[in-house]
């Protein structure tokens, strides 16, 4: 490095001038050059400061989000869940904040003393476990989740160092038992483990939580298609019916046949989702989706619909139902045996097993199988609920199977599945997968699949209404709502044999039968004969009157107007059928 020459304006010495000329060249004005450089530096620094200023502004603008995220993750360990509301906006499940007690064992000075003090305030704490947790060298340990504000105050007053509270989200179900099987429940960390709650998690909420979001309440509520008031009425009646007929279980569904929305679904015994431990008892399962049953004579509706839809059978066709049908060493007889030639409407209203079997045989095994598959009875039905059961379909489907399945034995389906099938038959022929969410008619039409002709559907509505006017379903006829229906009684299989006195009865009602809006299924598991039923325990004596009670209560809630001046089925439905043809 050369020594910097002193820039002197006054008469520099010759050696200086020489060095200058050597370094900078001849004839260069040093002063002007320095000024230019200074200017350059000035601009450079200004630029640097401008960049810093802009960065500062940017930091100020974006700093917010960082702060919020840091603040959000520190509270609320149990995840926040969206509210669940019914079709009218009533709350079915919501979150509230409750304090939870935790400890930082490393900071605890005397674990024994702390344990003793805490046990004084929270007597239900397990002292040994608390002592172990406090004595460990961990940084964090839960002591008790979900304590009351009073307990929080008392613990706070103890003044034990190393113990603190975290506000946590706690799921509450204000309606208790009534929605247990629909909504399901959550675990202590607020994660859905059954029902719609689990479905919400599977839709991506769980992933959201793992990423650290979703602790806030800002989530769109989940709107279901169920109706709180209808659910209450159904639940109330089923609990009463279960007591009255001393049944093992009772279950019911109300389905909107035009949209496939499940307006109500009850299966008693149920459990209180606020106390999910009850849910583990096997008797409290949801019989409508997780159980499969032989539905009995309600299946005749499907059999006859198949025959009418094929065109080979009309309402005026008749079948020989004399005596009983021998098939191998099986003997099929009628409960309400008429022992004569019956027409199709008579087979339906007398619920003739022999007649139904002969109708099905006339269609052939393959057609029978294909039709049941078409109306969704042979595959597992999946809804939003994670719980579903596979129907039990015979492995080798021979003529004998067709004979028994024609009247609802030998094929076990989830009751919800059979409701879907019958709904398709009465609603004009559209198979609509049922849903627990709200769905409009347009949306339903987009996913609907035509399975039978509209005329077949009208004929089936006529048969169901006729059955309520003068068949086995007269006890289900509620004046004013033009109910149509079909009874079903299935003998339960006990030790591989059909039992004569352990029955599963069900009733499928369509209302109103001329322009169906809703389908109601009521099911009783092993109802006992009582004095009022004159010793009978078949569907017409228990499930049918229960259905009538349910309809009386729910029809006004569903917005159906009673009409008292309607003519009989023959005039109303059958006549309109002939007109449209």
């Amino acid at each position, binding site marked *: 490095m050369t020594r910097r020459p002193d820039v002197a304006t006054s008469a520099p010495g010759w050696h200086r001038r020489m060095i200058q000329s050597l370094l900078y060249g001849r004839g260069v004005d040093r002063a002007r050059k320095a000024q230019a450089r200074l200017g350059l530096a000035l601009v450079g620094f200004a630029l640097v400061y401008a960049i810093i200023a802009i960065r500062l502004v940017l930091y100020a603008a974006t700093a917010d989000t960082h702060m919020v995220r840091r603040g959000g993750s520190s509270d609320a360990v149990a995840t926040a869940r969206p509210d669940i509301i019914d079709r009218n906006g009533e*709350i079915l499940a919501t979150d509230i904040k409750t304090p939870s007690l935790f400890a930082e064992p490393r900071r605890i000075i005397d674990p024994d003393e702390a344990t003793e003090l805490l046990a004084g305030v929270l007597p239900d704490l397990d002292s040994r476990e608390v002592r172990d947790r406090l004595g460990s060298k961990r940084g964090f340990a839960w002591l008790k989740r979900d304590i009351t504000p009073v307990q929080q105050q008392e613990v706070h007053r103890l003044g034990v160092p190393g113990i603190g509270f975290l506000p946590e989200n706690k799921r509450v179900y204000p309606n208790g038992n009534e929605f247990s099987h629909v909504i399901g429940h959550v675990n202590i960390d607020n994660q859905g483990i059954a029902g719609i709650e689990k479905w919400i998690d599977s839709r991506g909420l769980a992933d959201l939580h793992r990423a650290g979001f979703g602790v806030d309440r800002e989530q769109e509520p989940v709107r279901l298609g169920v109706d709180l008031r209808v659910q209450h009425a159904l639940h109330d009646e089923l609990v009463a019916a279960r007591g009255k007929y001393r049944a093992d279980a009772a279950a019911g569904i109300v389905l909107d046949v035009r949209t496939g929305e499940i307006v109500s679904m009850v299966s008693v015994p149920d459990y209180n989702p606020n106390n999910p431990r009850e849910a583990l008892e096997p008797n409290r399962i949801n019989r409508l989706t997780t159980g499969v049953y032989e539905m009995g004579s309600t299946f005749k509706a499907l059999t006859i619909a198949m025959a009418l839809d094929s065109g080979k059978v009309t309402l005026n066709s008749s079948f020989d139902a004399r005596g009983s049908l021998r098939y191998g060493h099986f003997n099929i007889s009628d409960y309400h045996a008429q022992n004569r030639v019956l027409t199709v409407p008579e087979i339906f209203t007398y619920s003739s097993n022999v007649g139904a079997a002969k109708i099905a045989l006339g269609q052939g095994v393959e057609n029978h199988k294909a039709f049941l598959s078409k109306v969704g009875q042979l595959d597992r039905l999946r809804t939003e609920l994670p719980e579903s059961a596979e129907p039990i379909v015979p492995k080798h489907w021979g003529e004998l199977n067709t004979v028994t399945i024609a009247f609802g034995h030998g094929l076990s389906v989830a009751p919800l599945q059979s409701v879907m099938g019958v709904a398709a038959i009465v609603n004009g022929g559209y198979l609509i997968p049922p849903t627990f969410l709200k769905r409009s008619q347009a949306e339903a039409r987009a996913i609907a699949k035509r399975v039978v002709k509209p005329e077949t559907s009208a004929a089936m509505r006529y048969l169901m209404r006729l059955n309520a006017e003068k068949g086995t379903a007269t006890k289900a006829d509620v004046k004013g709502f033009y109910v149509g229906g079909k009874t079903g009684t299935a003998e339960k299989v006990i030790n591989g044999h059909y039992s004569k006195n352990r029955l599963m009865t069900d009733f499928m009602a369509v209302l109103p039968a001329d322009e169906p809006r809703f389908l109601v299924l009521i099911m009783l598991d092993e109802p006992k004969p009582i004095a009022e039923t004159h010793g009978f325990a078949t569907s017409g004596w228990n499930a049918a009157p229960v259905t009538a009670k349910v309809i009386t209560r729910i029809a006004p809630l569903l917005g159906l107007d009673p009409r008292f001046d309607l003519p009989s089925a023959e005039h109303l439905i059958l006549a309109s059928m002939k007109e449209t043809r």
Partner: protein
Amino acid sequence: MMRFVHFIVVAALVAAAVYVYRIKFESAVQAERVAKLGAEIKRERDAIAALRAEWAQLENPVRIEALVQRHLSLKMLDPTQIEQFDSLPERPPMPAPPSSDAIATIIDGLEPAVPTGVAAGPLPTTPRTAR
């Protein structure tokens, strides 16, 4: 020229320092306010959620029904009690206002001194006895 620039730069430096300090201070105040309001909103939201849950519990049909059965003599609705709007009979023509209030004339006959304004007014309803 340079001296002038120096002057401006120094002045700008001082002004910027003062301005930045003020902004910094103000932003700290605002941030604190935001945090406070945020916490308040959160608390209010939690309170609303708790109240809504309580409300839902209070208006739960099971509870209402139990209360009704205990305190009122209401019965289940029967379909025959429902009437359509269209099937209501025509509104009967308004009865002509009576030429003279029968009771008023009696009272007037009894006590001619009573001012007419009281007699023409609506009859006082009997106070309900608290059960």
